């Protein structure tokens, strides 16, 4: 069932490719604007690269959060999900996985290419990609909680950013920190381990919290 729901969301995303592409292009454009804005000074670009890429990834994954549950809410599918004999947490985990595959994975794949604009070394690019690979699923999982809480509210899009962006801060610090640490020769293992720990905690706790929030929102 978990894979059925993921499969369904991927199918829906395939039928509406524009939604997927807007997120990716947003990411590409935001990351590319900085070198144009601050000028071609290599050492400055290198130091700001991890932060810029990570902030852009947060905002890009934020963009598509609103759609995570709202279309299912409007057409009544969400009601049926609440009435499913399957565990709602598992369904939510399936939806978060689909959200990550559609919005997170393209960012991870694109990041090394964009990193070249900032003259990052091969090692730094590798660490940047690894940190995004561990961090972006956490963004989808935490974002699901925010999306569930703001379901059906007017101006939910703005509210969800206010709710969720503060919760993203630890991921941002350790994600960008991993690249900085590796560039400084300290090794990124500690930062990446912490990101992995965040991911495990989010996989266990976030679907359950989201399920409870959905039940509250639907009452």
């Amino acid at each position, binding site marked *: *069932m978990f894979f*059925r*729901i993921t499969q*369904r969301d991927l*199918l*829906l995303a395939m*039928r*509406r490719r524009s939604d997927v592409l807007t997120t990716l292009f947003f990411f590409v454009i935001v990351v590319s604007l900085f070198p144009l804005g601050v000028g071609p000074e290599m050492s400055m670009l290198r130091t700001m690269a991890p932060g810029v890429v990570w902030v852009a990834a947060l905002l890009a994954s934020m963009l598509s959060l609103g759609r995570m549950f709202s279309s299912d809410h*409007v*057409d*009544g*599918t969400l*009601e*049926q*999900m*609440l*009435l*499913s*004999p*399957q*565990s709602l947490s598992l*369904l939510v985990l399936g939806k978060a996985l689909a959200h990550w595959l559609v919005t997170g994975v393209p960012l991870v794949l694109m990041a090394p290419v964009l990193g070249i604009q900032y003259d990052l070394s091969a090692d730094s690019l590798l660490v940047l990609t690894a940190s995004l690979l561990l961090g972006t699923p956490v963004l989808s999982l935490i974002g699901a909680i925010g999306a569930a809480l703001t379901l059906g509210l007017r101006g939910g899009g703005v509210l969800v950013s206010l709710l969720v962006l503060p919760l993203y801060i630890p991921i941002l610090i350790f994600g960008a920190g991993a690249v900085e640490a590796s560039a400084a020769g300290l090794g990124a293992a500690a930062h990446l381990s912490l990101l992995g720990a965040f991911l495990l905690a989010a996989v266990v706790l976030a679907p359950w919290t989201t399920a409870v929030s959905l039940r509250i929102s*639907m*009452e």
Partner: protein
Amino acid sequence: MPTLQGIDLTCIRGDRKLFSGIHFSLDAGGLMQVGGPNGSGKTSLLRMLCGLAIPAHGEIRWGGSEIRSLGGAYYADMTYLGHLSGVKDDLTALENLRISSALAGTEVDASKAHDALQLMGLGGRDLLPAKVLSQGQRRRVNLARLLVCNTVLWILDEPLTALDAAAVKLMQGVMERHLEKGGMIVMTTHQEIEIAAAATQRLQLA
């Protein structure tokens, strides 16, 4: 076969009391038609019966246990079709039926789903995206779930809206067969429809 019981149900919306002191008991083969004017709380009552809303007072029991304590076990016995169809515009009728059934706990293979849609008069249209279907056809896609599910209790909120006379007759037959097999139906409708049942009760909300 378990019994559905409502005990002293009260529904409060805002500061208005929609209904109170509702008692009923529904056994195998029983049909309950919920009537009443617009805004009298029919949908609220049905949402309570499927656990989407909590009654302000009283409780609902399935086979003697409170439905919220049963959780998934109750949902495996129950099918709820509400006002919202749950039909996705971008998916075909066939995909819609298969996915919504899977979500409700019954995996349906493509040929069985195809047959159900055929029976609902959607033969040849099952591979079209739902967005090109008419209101009545979308309703038929939604109702096709009743043909493939194997739940005991059906809770149907205005199942016959937007259907033409032939489809109403078809649904009447489907519901009668379900009741004959010992199923139970709770439904609201504004249409006059005679459904043969072992025991029919009418619940009138003021």
